């Protein structure tokens, strides 16, 4: 599934005295089966874009189309082909691991035995066998991350939206989860939109890095990442990785400085 964004804009508080333009004419074609990383300073609207693509937030302008490349011209409804992995995870604290993972199937009316069988297999595949009946609060941060991943994967949607899913993890756990995600991507070839503000993460994971401007968020530059797959953390030490990092770093530094000035202005003006 291709995700085609055309002049997407999002304005918060448009009727109020201080409208905030989060996104402004964002255009990009996220190609089927590619891992695209949205990289930008905080407040540039990259999370908002992911939610708009998922049909969870209505854009104030422009359009998003989900297209099957085999059948162009018949766009699919937003949200029907995608599933989100959230920054805050949003696991249901009263549900056990297995009932969190099976939630989507339960909503679809899949019988208990069938959805549990599927959920169990997925839980095992993300390395959580034996923890089916724990509650999220009884797990470590990395384990909760895996639950959220399994809960998204069970939907078997071709598009995976990931909103800074690893931002809250410690460095070691983050590495493990990144390698896990690379493995899953190689195995499934889903279309992934991955929102991050970490340059190394974006280059390690992505086929392309879409560098966004400070608010209002626009595409500043799209950097193709031609590092070979399957990838592992070892590529971080290659010359190519270093060159890509430098290039991205210089692009983003400008924008981060702008974003910081904006924030300072907002604080000063308040």
């Amino acid at each position, binding site marked *: 599934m291709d995700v085609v964004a055309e002049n997407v804009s999002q304005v918060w508080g448009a009727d109020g005295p201080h409208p905030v333009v989060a996104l402004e004419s964002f255009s990009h074609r996220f190609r089927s089966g590619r891992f695209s990383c949205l990289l930008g300073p905080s407040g540039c609207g990259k999370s908002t874009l992911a939610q708009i693509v998922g049909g969870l937030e209505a854009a104030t302008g422009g359009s998003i189309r989900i297209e099957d490349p085999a059948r162009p011209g018949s766009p699919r409804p937003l949200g029907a082909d995608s599933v989100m992995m959230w920054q805050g995870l*949003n696991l249901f604290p*009263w549900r056990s691991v297995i009932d969190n993972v099976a939630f*989507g199937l339960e*909503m679809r009316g899949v019988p208990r035995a069938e959805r549990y069988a599927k959920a169990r297999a997925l839980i095992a595949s993300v390395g959580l066998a034996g923890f089916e009946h724990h509650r999220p609060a009884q797990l470590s941060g990395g384990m909760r991350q895996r639950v959220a991943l399994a809960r998204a994967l069970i939907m078997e949607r071709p598009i995976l939206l990931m909103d800074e899913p690893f931002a809250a993890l410690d460095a070691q756990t983050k590495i493990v989860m990144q390698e896990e995600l690379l493995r899953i991507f190689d195995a499934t070839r889903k279309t992934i939109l991955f929102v991050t503000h970490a340059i190394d993460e974006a280059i390690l994971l992505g086929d392309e890095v879409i560098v966004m401007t400070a608010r209002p968020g626009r595409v500043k530059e799209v950097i193709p990442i031609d590092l070979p797959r399957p990838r592992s953390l070892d590529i971080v030490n290659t010359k190519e990785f270093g060159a890509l990092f430098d290039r991205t770093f210089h692009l983003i530094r400008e924008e981060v400085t702008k974003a910081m000035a904006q924030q300072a202005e907002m604080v000063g003006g308040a």
Partner: protein
Amino acid sequence: MTKPRRATAARIGEAALPALTVVVVLAVWELLVRFHGIAPIYLPAPSSIAVYLWRMIADGSLAFHLGATLIRIFVGFAVASLAGIVMGLAMGMSRRVARVADIWIAALYPLPKISLIPLLIIWLGTGEAYKIMLSAITAFFPVVISTYSGIRQVDRGLVKAAEDLGANWRQIQLKVIIPAAIPSIFAGLQLGMGVTIIMVVAAEMIGGSGRSGMGYLLISSGQVMETEKVFASLIVMAVMGALIMKSQQWLDRRLAPWAVQGDGR
């Protein structure tokens, strides 16, 4: 060798300290009454209160009055919780219901419920219906308010996540909003139980007929200056209240272990 033993001794001392204060207070009280000749109608000695308490247990009167009060408490609480939860959920799910109910709650909640006694007696008489309604009306408010605010404070992220995973409106209400509001609903039920106990005893004391219940026992003993019985009733009611509240907390923890503070999510 000595270190752990000293630690254990310290721990036992720590645990025994509250009990020790009770013993000391009772002993001082007993000695004061005995050796200062305080008249028992003002302050009976703990030992004679204990004797009265035992007599009330032995002749079955305590069980009779306590039983009557407990039944009223549980019926009043059941009525209040059911009505309060249903109303709170309706308010949480429909803006229109919330807007209409809100002015009624705003007007009636601050009203001291004891001031409803004359009206309730005119409408319902002085029997069981009056006692139960007075307590149920009082307990209804904390339950409905906690339920409604619990629903309003549900994490929007959870609702969005459920939506993303294909839940429809009905499923979101049943599978996300209500479970997420349970900690708050339980908090409302605990407040409701507290005021139910207070209002049942108040109704038994004021205007109620039937010659039963702890409130009746308390006020009828007071009127004939059987101060030992007054004290005995107070002790029983304190223990009753503490046991009810503690078992409710225990039950809440069993039913909603995720809601316990410190367990986080």
